[in-house]
């Protein structure tokens, strides 16, 4: 990890002309977007629109066919650039290692990179669990946690890295409304407390309009609109309007 980049606050992210296809299926088509340091940026879109694939590109889990991703102006494809920034991702499923206890999961980054002593790791784990309201769950296994608790444990694991950019993949999917609110509050609190740049991928409209500084809507691999929550809400683009107003009402006879 590059110590030069160990500064407080978030990192700026820019995506330029990103394209990705899997076989003949075009998943991302000329994606351009910019996330400013310290902002909460929500990427919305229907299922299968390419949101998660875009997120995976940002942490180097996928290699783009074309285009580039810049962190503070540096292309992440460059040697050692990605490892020079503290990035964290909260996976849709949580991504906790099922063979490790919650405490071991949260301290994994520190223990594997030998950044702290075991006692310090124990203290940090307890502190991060406290932040996400999971105090005392260190010795539990991930399978013993509820969906919401697992998501919060995943956030605690991300916090250990002291991230400059944190990516959330559908943080409220599979959660009940109360747990969704807890997770949303956590995202905002984190942003306020450490100034981390947050990129949230979700199709949860309530979450998006509740926490976002800016919102982008993606449809079939293309960004169709970007702007402040109010601007997106008032967008006249038919795709955006359809997505934001989609609802179900039982037909009455």
């Amino acid at each position, binding site marked *: *990890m590059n110590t030069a980049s160990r500064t407080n606050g978030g990192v700026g992210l820019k995506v330029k002309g990103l394209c990705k296809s899997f076989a003949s299926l075009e998943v991302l088509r000329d994606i351009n977007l910019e996330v400013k340091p310290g902002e909460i940026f929500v990427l919305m879109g229907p299922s299968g629109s390419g949101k998660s694939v875009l997120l*995976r590109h940002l*942490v*180097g*889990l996928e290699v783009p066919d074309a285009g580039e991703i810049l962190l503070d102006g540096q292309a992440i494809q460059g040697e050692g650039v990605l*490892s020079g920034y503290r*990035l*964290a*991702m909260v*996976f*849709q*499923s949580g*991504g*906790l*290692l*099922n*063979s490790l206890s919650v405490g071991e999961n949260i301290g*994994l*980054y520190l223990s*594997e*990179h*030998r950044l702290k002593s075991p006692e310090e790791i124990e203290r940090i784990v307890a502190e991060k669990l406290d932040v996400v309201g999971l105090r005392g769950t260190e010795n539990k296994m991930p399978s013993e946690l509820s969906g919401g608790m697992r998501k919060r444990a995943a956030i605690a*694991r991300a916090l250990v*890295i002291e991230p400059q950019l944190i990516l959330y993949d559908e943080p409220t999917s599979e959660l009940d409304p109360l747990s969704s609110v807890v997770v949303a509050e956590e995202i905002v609190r984190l942003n306020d407390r450490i100034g981390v740049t947050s990129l949230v991928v979700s199709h949860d409209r309530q979450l998006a309009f509740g926490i976002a500084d800016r919102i982008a809507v993606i449809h079939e691999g293309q960004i169709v609109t970007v702007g402040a929550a109010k601007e997106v809400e008032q967008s006249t683009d038919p795709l955006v309007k359809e997505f934001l107003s989609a609802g179900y009402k039982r037909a009455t006879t």
Partner: protein
Amino acid sequence: MFQNIGEMVVLFWRTLMALPLTWRQRGKVFDQLFEIGNASLLMVCILSFFIGGVIALQTGPVLVERGLASAVGGVVGIAICKELSPVLMAVLIAGRIGSAMAAEIGSMRVYQEIDALRTMNISPIHYLVLPRLVAIATALPMLVIFSILVAWLGGALVCLSNDRIAISFASYFMNLNDVVAIKDVANGVFKSFVFALIIGVVSCQQGLITRGGPRGIGRSVTKAVVNSIVLIVILDYILTRVLLR
């Protein structure tokens, strides 16, 4: 198929390059060693005893009828240490441990645990593959030595108890001692070391490329076991040719 082979070679090479980190991963290596020993020791014992027994039963009466009773110990001894123990133990371990490795790594892949490791700058090769490969490459040769001893004992008991063979423990082991050299046992153990690397690399590679859900995991497990066994049999022939020189 060629893509699979290429990926296995790359995985093996990267794991070799990571060998200096083994000490850091010693906890996981010991966990895996315990897992392999715990899961296999009883089966190795039973299988080896009966393999020794059946080889003695098949060869003993034929040799005794032709006045070659003094050769039974040597025939059983050589067959066990050079061929049967290394190959059959490798097949057993491919089925029990290789399948478990592929399933565990495969489910970690499917449930995004490996992606989570990568985002934390933790190499899946250092964290998952290295400890498994070191453990299996250590455990299988040890299990084969144990298997050889148990199989020899099984052969001796059959020779003693079967009326058509009726060879004493002393003459069986004396003949075995005359015929089997340390080099023969070493050949078998060396073979098992190579087989262990094959099982480890094939199983970990299949786990790492798992796609889809539970069906994908099942497919990876099947491929890990089948590919391991096919490669073991092919390599057995090649190694036997090389070691016979």
